[in-house]
């Protein structure tokens, strides 16, 4: 057998063991005895240190699989063992409120109280006494150039600008509206997001960015026509290879498209 083939066999064994550990593959799907036999056959042919190291990793991986088999058996024989499929099916037919009520019945929340300690008070006092007066900080407060930045959905929720329910509702409404009005034929990006005011245009493009990121809308860039076509999907889907698309929304850009109507 060629060196390359030997290496491939050993590497495949290592990968298989790794998938039991990381992806929760049923450890009994691994034929440990057969694979150990295979490694035993290959062992006399291994000469290089690198090959021996691979062999060692494969044996260690198989030992790990045996450990997983033992844990699996222990779990299955315990009172907690239930058919995972049965549990999943049960949960799929339950309403969120029913699931939440079940959680409440087995939940014993931790009590935790926020408190202020002398050391925190001291830190606060130090900060306050060392803070320069407003007159000295005038330039810093008034003269600072505003930098553009990113704000996440979570930050907006924390600031109270947007609640999670409201955000979900807005996205769903926009998606449904698109499905109804545009359908599979698609529409030019600017035609869809451009509104009567610049603020509304920014808002619509912001919503669109989430619909695209979550796979509810498909994007097609047409470089020759200098256009971007967006199409609502009937069911959300993720692209195999995520890509980044930057669409700047400037006031000038908005005016240009608004004039076009």
């Amino acid at each position: 057998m060629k060196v390359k083939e030997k290496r491939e066999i050993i590497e495949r064994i290592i990968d298989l063991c790794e998938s039991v550990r990381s992806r929760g593959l049923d450890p009994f799907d691994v034929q440990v005895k057969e694979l150990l036999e295979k490694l035993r056959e290959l062992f006399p042919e291994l000469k290089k240190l690198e090959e021996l190291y691979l062999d060692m990793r494969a044996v260690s991986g198989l030992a790990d699989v045996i450990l997983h088999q033992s844990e699996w058996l222990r779990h299955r024989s315990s009172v907690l063992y239930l058919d995972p499929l049965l549990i999943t099916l049960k949960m799929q037919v339950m309403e969120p409120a029913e699931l939440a009520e079940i959680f409440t019945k087995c939940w014993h929340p931790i009590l935790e109280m926020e408190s202020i300690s002398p050391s925190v008070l001291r830190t606060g006092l130090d900060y306050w006494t060392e803070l320069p007066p407003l007159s000295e900080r005038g330039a810093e407060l008034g003269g600072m150039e505003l930098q553009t930045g990113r704000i996440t959905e979570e930050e907006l929720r924390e600031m109270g600008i947007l609640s999670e329910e409201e955000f979900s509702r807005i996205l769903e409404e926009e998606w449904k509206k698109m499905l109804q009005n545009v359908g599979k034929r698609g529409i030019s990006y600017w035609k869809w997001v451009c509104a009567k005011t610049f603020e509304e245009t920014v808002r619509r493009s912001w919503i669109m960015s989430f619909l695209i990121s979550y796979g509810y809308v498909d994007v097609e860039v047409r470089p020759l026509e200098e256009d971007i076509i967006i199409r609502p999907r009937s069911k959300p889907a993720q692209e195999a290879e995520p890509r980044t698309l930057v669409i700047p929304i400037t006031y000038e850009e908005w005016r240009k498209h608004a004039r076009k109507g």
Partner: protein
Amino acid sequence: MPEKDEVEIRQKLSRAAQLLLFKHHREPGARRWELRRALGRNYEDVIKALDAELEKLGLTVKVVKEGDSESDRFVVTFRGHPEFSEVRTFGWRIDDMAILTMTLATILARGGKVAGKEIEKILEEKFPKWRVESAIDRFIRMGYLQEDEKGVLYLGWRTRAEVDEKTLLSLLLGKEKKEETR
């Protein structure tokens, strides 16, 4: 009991209550070594006495095993469970509780760990993708879930402290347990 001893015990009880009830770090409760350092060699007796006091209020001291025994976390939890109607006022969303229930049950039914992507796939059949992702992240931050470098999800320390795993699975399968409310 001499008066001096009694005063000392009362002082240790208050110190133990402060350590367990007030947040000192980012996470609640106190570690075993912290209790030993603050309460002395007989810290376990002090904790037992505190537990007896807390029982009158419907609370209990729970120990969450974490690595070596010195790192065990002592926390105060509800002895029973809260009423469903009250939970709405705790700042929890119904959907979030449902997502956590499904995640924990799936992990438990599959032997203690599940690939994060797999959980997301199961949850996305019932909830919008953006809600699932943000809820999972939040539960990891809160300590209900733990994620390793490969994206595999496990039960977190907070689940082990707060959730009665057997009751959760029994209730999901419709085997009602004799209820104990707060």
